């Protein structure tokens, strides 16, 4: 397999089983100190494992031959000593392999988390949260099981077999050969069950993911569910997913349960052969009862490891499928990342330029969201963006901090292509307040200090003050220490928006982007905020998206976006004279004001 094709596949975010195994191999190699120790101990354990039947057989032989009590006691003591050593080695064997599995789980989880943080917004458009969660939780667990009990058996059982066969062959090669007869069947069994197991374990995982999604959606939308009394609808959807999961679980159980039962038959068949042969050989004097014991005990001791091979097989299958699903995430190359031709900037000056920017969201044949947008925002100036719903305003603002992939040569900051500015560099210089005002379930103070190296109470207080949130603190049960709840649900819409604003104001960026940030904030508060902004951000670049003329009226220039294209561009005064969208908007809003005045 060529490296190039490998990389090509990784780029696509699809993972072959081989790529998944290769990735897992890297983690195993990294933890080889565990596995080296484990191998040594396993060999010791296998020696003990083989010594037990041999010593048993010898003792029986001696007894049958009429050995005296001292001789037998001596052998029993030896047996006891071997037994204690074997049991002790087993302790270390298990601790090592299970600890290694936890270590790798730890590393994989860190890597997944770090990788998710590197993936761009376009990735999160395609992947559902529930699906990603299921990979981070359920699939990771399956991989851990593969590495723990799975690997333990997969490695140990063949060694046990080799050792046991060596002992058998040295005792009676003909009988040993006969005992082997049933084992080729194992391959057949494994093959026929393997497929079903693989399929149904994937289906179960997907069923779980589906169920999570249903649940997550119903909970996230609980206010709508309740106020429209649609509990039955969501319950029906959930029941469908639930029933499907039950069905898949049962299918998997059937396959997984049948396999160990059938593989368990193999050693039993071997035992049947030994029993039959002993029936001829012992009376004929070709075999002692002691030898029979050793043979029988070896086979019996192999029964359990063989019996669980079916289960282990399932673990491996499921773990492999899970690793593939994890690899799918890890193999998705972040399409927004730093490149080799980067330009190091100390600090952004804040000039923004779009040169004939055309942008379409990834996906089959989607209409471009932006078409031929050319616009220059000099450092320290302000830009207002207005336009109808869905005209591309948010998209335009989002490409500045590279939330989406833009082609080279279309977006420039300080005259440098954004794709050539390191993300750290770029985003440290930009503070953006996205439309949806997402808050984390930490305290309000921690949320405001989110972009700071640590919670700096003076800066937090200042930011809160500037975002006009100070008065609201009194209403909150613990002021700044109030835990705002998942997505900030403890706060009203306006409070949430102002908290998100404060989070940006706590920084001192060169470029501030406000994406319709104050839509739920009343006009008086907005005005106070604007005054604070003008004070603090005078001389810095500010991009404001709004539906309110009052928000953009004082901007140096205003761009009107319609259907992804700039239809008007100029100073607010010029636009008023041009008689286009902006003028219409202003007139409409002015008319309303006139109306007000006339009423007053």
């Amino acid at each position, binding site marked *: 397999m060529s490296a190039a094709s490998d990389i090509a596949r990784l780029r696509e975010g699809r993972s072959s089983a081989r790529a998944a195994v290769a990735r897992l191999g890297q983690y195993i190699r990294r933890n080889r100190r565990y596995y080296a120790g484990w191998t040594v101990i396993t060999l010791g354990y296998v020696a003990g494992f083989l010594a037990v039947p041999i010593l048993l057989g010898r003792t029986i032989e001696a007894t049958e031959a009429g050995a005296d009590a001292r001789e037998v006691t001596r052998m029993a003591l030896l047996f006891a000593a071997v037994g204690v050593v074997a049991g002790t080695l087993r302790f270390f064997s298990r601790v090592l392999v299970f600890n290694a599995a936890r270590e790798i789980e730890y590393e994989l989880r860190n890597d997944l988390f770090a990788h998710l943080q590197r993936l761009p917004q376009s990735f999160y458009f395609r992947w559902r949260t529930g699906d990603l969660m299921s990979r981070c939780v359920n699939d990771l667990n399956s991989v851990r099981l593969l590495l723990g009990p799975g690997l333990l058996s997969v490695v140990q059982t063949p060694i046990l077999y080799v050792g046991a066969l060596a002992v058998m062959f040295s005792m009676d090669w003909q009988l040993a050969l006969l005992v082997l007869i049933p084992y080729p069947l194992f391959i057949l069994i494994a093959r026929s069950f393997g497929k079903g197991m693989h399929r149904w374990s994937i289906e179960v995982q997907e069923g779980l993911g589906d169920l999570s999604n249903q649940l997550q959606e119903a909970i996230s939308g609980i206010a709508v569910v309740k106020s429209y009394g649609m509990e039955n609808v969501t319950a029906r959807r959930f029941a469908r997913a639930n029933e499907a999961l039950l069905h898949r679980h049962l299918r998997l159980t059937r396959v997984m349960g049948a396999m160990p039962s059938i593989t368990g038959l193999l050693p039993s068949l071997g035992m049947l052969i030994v029993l039959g042969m002993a029936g001829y050989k012992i009376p004929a004097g070709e075999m002692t009862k002691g030898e029979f014991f050793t043979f029988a005990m070896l086979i019996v001791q192999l029964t359990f490891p063989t019996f669980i091979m079916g289960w282990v097989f399932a673990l491996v299958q499921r773990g492999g499928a899970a690793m593939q699903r994890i690899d799918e995430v890890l193999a998705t190359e972040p399409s927004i990342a730093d490149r080799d031709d980067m330009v190091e900037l100390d600090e952004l000056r804040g000039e923004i330029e779009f040169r004939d920017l055309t942008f379409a969201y990834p996906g089959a044949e989607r209409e471009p969201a932006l078409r031929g947008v050319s616009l220059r925002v000099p450092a320290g100036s302000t830009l207002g963006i207005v336009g109808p719903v869905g005209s591309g305003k948010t998209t335009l603002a989002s490409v500045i*901090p590279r939330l989406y992939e833009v082609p080279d040569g279309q977006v420039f900051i300080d005259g440098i292509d954004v794709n050539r500015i390191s993300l750290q560099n770029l985003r440290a210089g930009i503070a953006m307040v996205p439309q949806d005002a997402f808050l984390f379930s930490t305290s309000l103070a921690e949320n405001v200090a989110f972009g700071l190296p640590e919670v700096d109470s003076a800066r937090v207080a200042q930011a809160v003050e500037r975002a006009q949130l100070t008065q609201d603190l009194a209403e909150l049960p613990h002021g700044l220490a109030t835990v705002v709840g*998942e997505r900030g649900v403890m706060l009203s819409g306006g409070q949430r928006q102002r908290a998100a604003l404060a989070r940006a104001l706590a920084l001192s960026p060169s470029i501030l982007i406000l994406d319709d940030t104050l839509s739920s904030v009343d006009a008086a508060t907005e005005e106070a905020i604007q005054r604070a902004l003008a004070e603090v951000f005078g001389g810095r670049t500010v991009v404001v998206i709004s539906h309110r003329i009052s928000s953009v009226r004082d901007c140096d220039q205003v761009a009107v976006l319609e259907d992804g294209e700039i239809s008007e561009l100029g100073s607010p005064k010029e636009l008023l004279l041009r008689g286009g969208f902006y003028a219409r908007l202003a007139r409409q809003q002015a008319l309303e004001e006139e109306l*007000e005045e006339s009423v007053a």
Partner: protein
Amino acid sequence: MSAPDGFQEEAALGKAYDARLMRRLLPYIGPYKWLVLLSLAIAPPLFAVQLAPAWIVKQGLDRVFGGGSEAAEVPGPDWLLGIFEAPAGLPPLAWLLILYAVTIVTMAALRFLNMYVMAWTGQLAMRDLRRDVFDHIQKLHLGFFDRYPVGRLVTRATNDVENLAEMFSSGIVQAVIDVLFMAVIAAALLALNPELALITFAVVPVLAVVAVIFRMKVREAFRETRVWLARINAQIQETITGMKVVQLFTRELRNLRDFEAMNAENRDAWQRSNRYEAGLFSAVEVAQNLTFAVILGYGFRIASAGTFYVFIEWMRLFFMPLRDLSAKYSVMQSSMASAERIFQLLDTEPAVQDRGDAPAVTAPRRGEVEFDGVWFAYQGEDWILRDVSFRVAPGEKVALVGHTGAGKTSIIKLLARLYEPQRGQIRIDGVDLRNMPQAEARRRVAMVLQDVFLFSGTIAENIGLGRDDLTPADLELAARSVEAHGFIERLPDGYRSELREQGSNLSAGQRQLLSFARAVAHGADVLILDEATSSIDTETEAAIQRGIHALMEGKTAIAIAHRLSTIQDVDRIYVLHKGRVVEDGHHEGLLESRGVYFRLYQLQYRAQEGGEGSARTA
């Protein structure tokens, strides 16, 4: 950025068996008790076929192969011993081989059956439990979700329930069967050779002490792992949902550092518990080998080779469940912890509930809304509403105005009965909302909430919200009335276009138009609008105003108005200030009285739209 510890559910008890929880799980098995009985019925034949192989070998060693010491007569019923006598005309060896073959095939079949029946029971019970968890979650009032992250709720219904399923398939019933089997083995060995049997079992009490120590040790480690894992998963979930903010604020490195710390704690706790588990495992193995040594060193004087074989084989079977004890213990313990968390969730009383004893609501649907001395706080005594009273007559349209935080949104939430007031009454059509079944209340009141939530599914499904009685024509009509039809038609599949998660393929304004269409399609008598027009541009808004105007025709409407046009449209304005209704009346009248409304108007409505006006005030 760790998840809040608002709920102690994470630190669930570390018990492996909790009678209280077991009693609560029983009802889930109830409907399937015939399956449990079936698995119990399978147990005796399963015991028999597991004991039989060693006995057959003994027959061979002691009686058929010859050359050794003859076995002493074995006690037992004649019919049982008779099975092992070859029928006339068949060589004894052939008969033993036939018996052996039949035994192993039967064993494979019974083992499968046993496993499947138990797993089946477990899965059926778990399906029911998942359903109950889901239904219960949906019944909980909205305040609950403020404190309980979605990720954790999802874990309750998926991972926790999966954990329990494992207990059902390899736990409780299996444990009973194992104990029975061990008792049967002990009895059989005692019957076979009492002296040797007693010596053999000498090691068992020692093992019991080891198991108890193990139990205590492993409990603590387990409890820790649970707490950490829950936090880890909550953090992953939250980071994924808030990824845009994480990246914009370049928090990746610090997040990762915090995450790694939690993750390491989790790993360490697991590695501790690995040691205890392996300790128990190897203790059982050592005990087993010592037992064999005792059998060898002592037994040669009193037993035949065949009896040796039986002893060693059966003792191995005896130790098998003990060796699996650590695995079973982990299963039981994590199941109990999961059960604890699940029941804690199921025990959370929905703060808003239908009253069982409430008389059926017969009041005709008029569309009347009344607040009567309503006091409300989200928490404790932090009153958001203080003694709020007003009445909206059928067909009347009112606006609630007030400064941010005056309590407007809370009134809406109370009307939707997403919360309940601490004091006072809210009446719809004269009936106390608390006495009105929630389904009935929702038929009478339609909401347009501030946050538009869209479900995955088609546009049509998102307008109809599962109402079967709405035809495609009804949905289109609703969409047309709010002027959403235009953009819907432009979508690739029109009304059948699939929405992505949270409708991310629609703009905020389009999402809002959809939510209007929902309210229209719903056709209630009372329409409630919460800041519905706040994030819509003026053009779209004008379209919506027209639609809403048509919709409100003949209906009672309560609006949290941000726009002057809405305020002027309504019949009456209630002015809220710090949780109280301070003024009410018509726009002009209120302005003339120069009270709170006048100031609000100056602040809010005048400054909001008008450029020059606000500039002068500033």
